[in-house]
């Protein structure tokens, strides 16, 4: 009885201690540094005051706010994490680097749940590495659409790329669409025809696989469309809104150029989603990337301070603060409730962006080298004289992408040949790294593929090595000299290579 009592008492004591510690834990004053874009510096100061006045934890934040552009923040953080800001904002393409450098602390379970449910799916994917959320979505407006001069391009022409080019040539004015200098823009043509370039990272932010279909018949259609644009003498490779002041009649750029362009064109400014192009009688609506800005919290040595800063970051990226940023600076919110608000729905630039979003691809994690590899496609396309030249441009691209993972000798390829080897989807290629990969097998007559060594293209492992999940694949016997793995059913599979053994699990 005495023993039980003492156990109970101890338990009670521990409980009160933890409860007390928890309630009092976040209360206090915290000195922190915040990096935000210059244009929201004052607004952020005001929002922090609001947070200090209203938060329920008794947190008082004394913030030193510095203007650091989202483009520079990541590089600075990686240079010296210790001297970097406690809260900083960055464009999503910097995300993987920051996770690898250990410059981001992951969100708590509760905060992660709130972020997941209240923001659009694209931005949540952008802030996730593996299964872990590492940042708070700040905006969801990092995409592009078409600005045009109504006095040059009539409204009925804006849906057709060919018509816009013709109007520009007629008026001797430029059509600015950044091509040779930015993969972010020129990928637009590939997304139009349904090509994808999807990269996967693990929990540490390391790239483990890619699924890329730019080098395919669909990709060839895309570059044919691209050729129409880059061959025009009035095509200008630029995304600068100020191009309107130097003889441009149409510019493809983002919401950040809105005020500049409005200032130049005034009532003649038109905004709309991107046009379509036509190849062999079929029309393809140009796609786009839709990206976002994120707010990250630096890992802290003091966990209580870390928790307090996370509370602030959560507040700063909540619906109220996002709406304030929209009202002050027209930053497109990522918060679903804010996106649905009448004020946001009434902004022409954001409406054009959201219309374009229907054709857009969320910008997930992308290998840093991809941007340089993909941007040269348009130069190759411009130099090409026939279809073979266009195909060569795609081949060059594909070789470079492959070599990113080929460098790693542990990498293996799973080349899928869904529906027969001459099928359009033959280029469905998945890269293994660290021996594991998840793949979607669509229903078709032949749902097989082979695992090869990237350099030699020899079959390395296949049907004969499958030890687990042999019941999921077909035994073709003598009809399988290439050691192919042929699935019985369509579905999502995880294929793992461990030493010489292959295991297949249906998900």
């Amino acid at each position: 009885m005495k023993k039980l009592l003492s156990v109970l008492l101890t338990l009670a004591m521990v409980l009160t201690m933890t409860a007390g510690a928890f309630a009092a834990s976040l209360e206090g004053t915290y000195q922190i540094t915040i990096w935000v874009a210059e244009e929201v510096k004052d607004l952020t100061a005001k929002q922090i005051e609001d947070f200090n006045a209203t938060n329920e934890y008794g947190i008082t934040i004394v913030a030193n706010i510095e203007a650091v552009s989202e483009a520079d923040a990541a590089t600075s953080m990686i240079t010296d994490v210790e001297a970097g800001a406690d809260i900083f904002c960055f464009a999503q393409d910097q995300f993987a680097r920051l996770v690898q450098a250990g410059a981001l602390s992951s969100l708590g379970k509760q905060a992660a749940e709130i972020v997941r449910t209240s923001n659009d799916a694209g931005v949540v994917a952008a802030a996730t590495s593996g299964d872990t959320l590492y940042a708070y979505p700040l905006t969801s407006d990092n995409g592009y659409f078409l600005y045009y001069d109504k006095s040059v391009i009539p409204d009925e022409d804006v849906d057709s790329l060919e018509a816009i080019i013709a109007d520009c040539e007629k008026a001797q004015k430029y059509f600015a669409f950044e091509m040779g200098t930015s993969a972010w823009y020129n990928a637009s043509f590939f997304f139009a025809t349904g090509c994808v370039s999807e990269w996967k990272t693990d929990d540490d932010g390391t790239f483990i696989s890619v699924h890329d279909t730019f080098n395919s018949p669909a990709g060839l259609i895309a570059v044919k469309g691209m050729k129409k644009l880059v061959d025009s003498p009035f095509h200008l490779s630029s995304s600068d809104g100020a191009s309107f002041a130097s003889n441009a009649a149409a510019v493809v750029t983002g919401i950040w150029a809105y005020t500049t362009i409005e200032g130049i064109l005034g009532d003649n400014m038109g905004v709309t989603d991107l046009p379509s192009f036509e190849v062999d009688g079929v029309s393809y609506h140009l796609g786009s990337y839709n990206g976002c800005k994120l707010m990250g919290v630096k890992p802290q040595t003091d966990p209580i301070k870390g928790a307090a800063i996370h509370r602030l970051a959560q507040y700063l990226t909540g619906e109220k603060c996002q709406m304030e940023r929209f009202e002050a600076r027209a930053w497109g919110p990522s918060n679903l409730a804010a996106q649905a608000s009448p004020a946001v729905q009434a902004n022409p630039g954001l409406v054009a962006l959201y219309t374009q979003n229907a054709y857009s691809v969320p910008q997930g994690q992308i290998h840093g080298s991809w941007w340089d590899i993909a941007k040269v496609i348009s130069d190759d396309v411009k130099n090409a004289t026939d279809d073979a030249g266009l195909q060569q441009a795609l081949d060059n691209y594909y070789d470079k992408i492959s070599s990113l993972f080929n460098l790693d000798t542990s990498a293996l390829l799973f080349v899928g040949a869904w529906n027969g080897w001459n099928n359009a989807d033959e280029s469905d290629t998945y890269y293994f790294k660290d021996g594991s990969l998840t793949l979607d097998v669509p229903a078709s007559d032949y749902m097989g593929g082979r695992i090869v060594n990237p350099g030699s293209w020899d079959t390395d492992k296949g049907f004969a090595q499958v030890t687990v999940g042999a019941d999921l694949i077909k035994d073709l016997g003598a009809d399988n000299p290439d050691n192919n793995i042929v699935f019985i059913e369509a579905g999502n599979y995880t294929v793992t290579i461990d030493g010489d053994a292959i295991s297949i699990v249906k998900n």
Partner: protein
Amino acid sequence: MIQSQKSETPSMKRHMGMKASSRISNTVSYVVLVLISVIWLIPFVCILLQSFRCESTHQVGYIIPQKWGLDNYRNLFNTNFPRWYTNTLITALFVAVFQTIIVLCMSYTLSRFRFKMRKPLMQFMLILGMFPGMLSMIILYQVLKDLGMTQSNAVPGLILVYIASSGMGYYVSKGFFDTISKSLDEAARIDGATRFQVLLKIILPLSKPIVIYTILTAFMGPWGDFVFARYISFNVSAGMNAAVGLYGWLSQDQISKNYTMFCAGGVLVAVPVTILFMCLQRYYVEGVTGGAVKG
């Protein structure tokens, strides 16, 4: 060229006359020179004109402003620009004073004194000077960070770094001191002057051009520095110099709002340097060439 002159008939030569031919060659060289200076001056003129443009703040496709005014200059004072400017000025002035003292003392010592290891020391510094300074940047940053001289305290940190390496820039002034006759020193020493008095009262008055050249180069280094200043200030506005601060206005989200103000800032940065050079140009040229002549 010679051949074509030879082929000219004597009558033709008389026809043109010396005056005419020199006029032609003058015209040609002037046209070429004007062309070169136009090409060279265009960026400066553009920046100057853009800084007076008031109708818009973003980049435009024309050079001559439609509406002139001083708005951009006025707006500069509502930003952190005065702070950046002061930082730059303080750094440059401190460096100009201390670096000049160090360099002149160093040159005097190496020129007049004979001591053990003098030659090896000079060779060592020559070799040391061949390593690019950028190599040491990361180490220096860490050291300064540990000393608490980065970010908002970047100014003392920068002064320290610039001054610390200044002893190695003695070549030009040592060369100049070598040209001053030693018998002057000896005469002064016989009259009872100390070594320091010799430097102060005999050598320095005779080396005005080199002193001014040393001050100018010492001032110009930190005045125009960007790479190191950017690293040390590490995104903290209070510790930036003018170049680093202004560069921030060229980022994608700010350029359309701050472009003309950036130009105005650039003009203000150029003003003191231009004035300094205009006043001291005579000495500067003498200083640069002076060290090279051994008399």
